[in-house]
């Protein structure tokens, strides 16, 4: 495989929320939910995005506007071209028959969306700062929603909602993606309740294929050993939930 972007045409764009759009493009080839693609805008930059829709030979990525790159991305329309390379990394190991719970925080929900249809017995928890940021409201009718400001659903965090649900029912596996503090707290809950757990981590990614070392998390390369890690790995990763690495390579404490 040659690790270089190839140009593809965007075939559809959906507005999901005021700040997020989903871009659809043709893709044929194997893909595991949780894996990511590097998306290239020539002469600007290249960033990692997970797949949020799988529809026959089309894939979709949901992009939150949060910097120069994503702003430029949001200006793209159907017919425009972007560069992609991938898929990269290790995705989720789906155990379809287990009673599962998906927990998405903010844009993290995009990474989990493609596994909903593949699980037989699944509960979804989604949290955001405010109601207008909640994703896929029409796509998944039955979600346990929560917002920090109480504008929709439970007022509080996904962790609060999970704790409340666990008083009434038991899950055999939890899949999570979102802010790392959230994923860390869920890991602690899974430890206590002996629930299998997988979480998708976000790090600053440069090469995407395991040579530059920029996306390190306690000796694990998020781009190739992850981005999805199993509970047994997460427990051994001292940086998980605590430390990430900036574009310069400096270790910083998670906000």
């Amino acid at each position, binding site marked *: *495989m*040659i*690790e*270089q*972007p*190839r*140009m593809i045409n965007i075939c559809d764009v959906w507005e999901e929320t005021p700040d997020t759009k989903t871009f659809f493009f043709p893709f044929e080839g194997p893909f595991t939910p949780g894996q990511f693609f*590097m998306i*290239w805008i*020539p*002469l*600007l*930059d*290249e*960033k990692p995005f997970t797949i949020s829709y799988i529809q026959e030979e089309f894939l979709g990525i949901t992009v939150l506007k949060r910097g120069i790159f994503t702003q430029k991305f949001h200006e793209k329309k159907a017919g425009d*071209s972007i*560069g992609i390379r991938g898929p990269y990394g290790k995705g989720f190991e789906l155990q379809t028959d287990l009673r599962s719970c998906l927990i998405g925080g903010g844009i993290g929900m995009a990474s989990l969306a493609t596994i909903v249809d593949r699980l037989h017995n699944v509960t979804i928890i989604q949290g955001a700062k405010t109601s207008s940021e909640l994703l896929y409201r029409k796509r998944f009718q039955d979600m346990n929603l929560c917002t920090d400001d109480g504008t929709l659903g439970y007022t509080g965090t996904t962790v609060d909602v999970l704790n409340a649900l666990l008083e009434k029912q038991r899950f055999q596996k939890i899949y999570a993606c979102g802010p790392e503090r959230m994923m860390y707290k869920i890991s602690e809950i899974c430890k206590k309740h002996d629930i299998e757990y997988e979480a998708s981590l976000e790090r600053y990614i*440069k*090469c995407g*294929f*395991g*040579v*530059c*070392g*920029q996306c*390190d998390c*306690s*000796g694990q*390369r998020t781009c190739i050993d992850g981005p999805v890690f199993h509970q047994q790995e997460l427990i051994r990763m001292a*940086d998980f939930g605590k430390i990430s*690495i*900036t*574009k*310069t*390579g*400096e*270790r910083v404490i998670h906000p």
Partner: protein
Amino acid sequence: MFLHLQDEGYNGNKLSGRARGKAATLIYRFKSIMQKVDLSVTLCSIPLRNPTILASGILGTTRALLKRVAENGAGALTIKSISTEPREGHNNPTVITFEAGMLNAVGYSNPGMHAAAREFSDLQEIGVPVIASVIGTEHEDFMRVVEGLSKIQFSAIEIPLSCPHTPGFGLLSGQGTPESTFKITSLVRKATKLPIFVKLSPNSPELCTAAKAAEDAGADAITAVNSMGPGMAINIDAQRPVLGFKVGGVTGDALRPIAVRCVYDLYKAVKIPIIGVGGISTGRHAIEMMMAGASVIGIGTGVYYRGIDVFRKVSEEMALWLQKNGYNTFRDIIGVVHD
């Protein structure tokens, strides 16, 4: 039989599943024989368990990753280069591959010497020698970074005067000339008692003169070579260069014959040891580099071709070849093509 293993499985890309299976069987079968071959080496008074070194710029960003590379068989490790101040480097794509290697223009992203000093504390936990890579735009910067890292237990200092893709550093600020090489090496010599490795460019027609200048200024070894070029890859559909910085250093298979020739020339030009780097990803490549005159070898792009345990694989393959050819130690083959 195993002599043909890499020829069969290693085709400039990753090993095929079948070849991997075969490799595992053969390595298991010859493990007892391999133990008779001595791969240990002393480089500038630094004892190494084997002659493979992680080259700078690959995986050397954190202590945790260094430890992991050590666990995967490297004899020594080089950290990613450190400057006085933090640097973000170039925009992505910063590293891409092509049919015969890799192109990179990371742009020396690093957290600066103060954060680096924190990151690389407790290096003794890693269990193998760690080499600091030190960069600067001004000659005096090299000295400042060496001083900034002086409390850390590095085993040696590497100064790459040869980067082809970062304005202000290496070739792009003329640091690879014999005069500049002499000045910078002399300044670093004053700042540290640790062994100094000067990393040179394969591009320069003055390679041997620059190496001699480094030797005269007190360098303890020459690292040969840095990436060549710069080169460029263009996406013809986008009609744009792919790398964020447009051009980048070329490494991997495309670099190997150039690197072997540089080491061959340097072996005749200097008396200090040579660390051979450039396109090494198999034991046969390593032995080729040593026959040209390298005392030890560096591996960078090989991590892409064969995984993070490329160091163990290369060491084992070297041992197999040496045993098969009647050598007890690889030291007997260093520079053998010159005889």
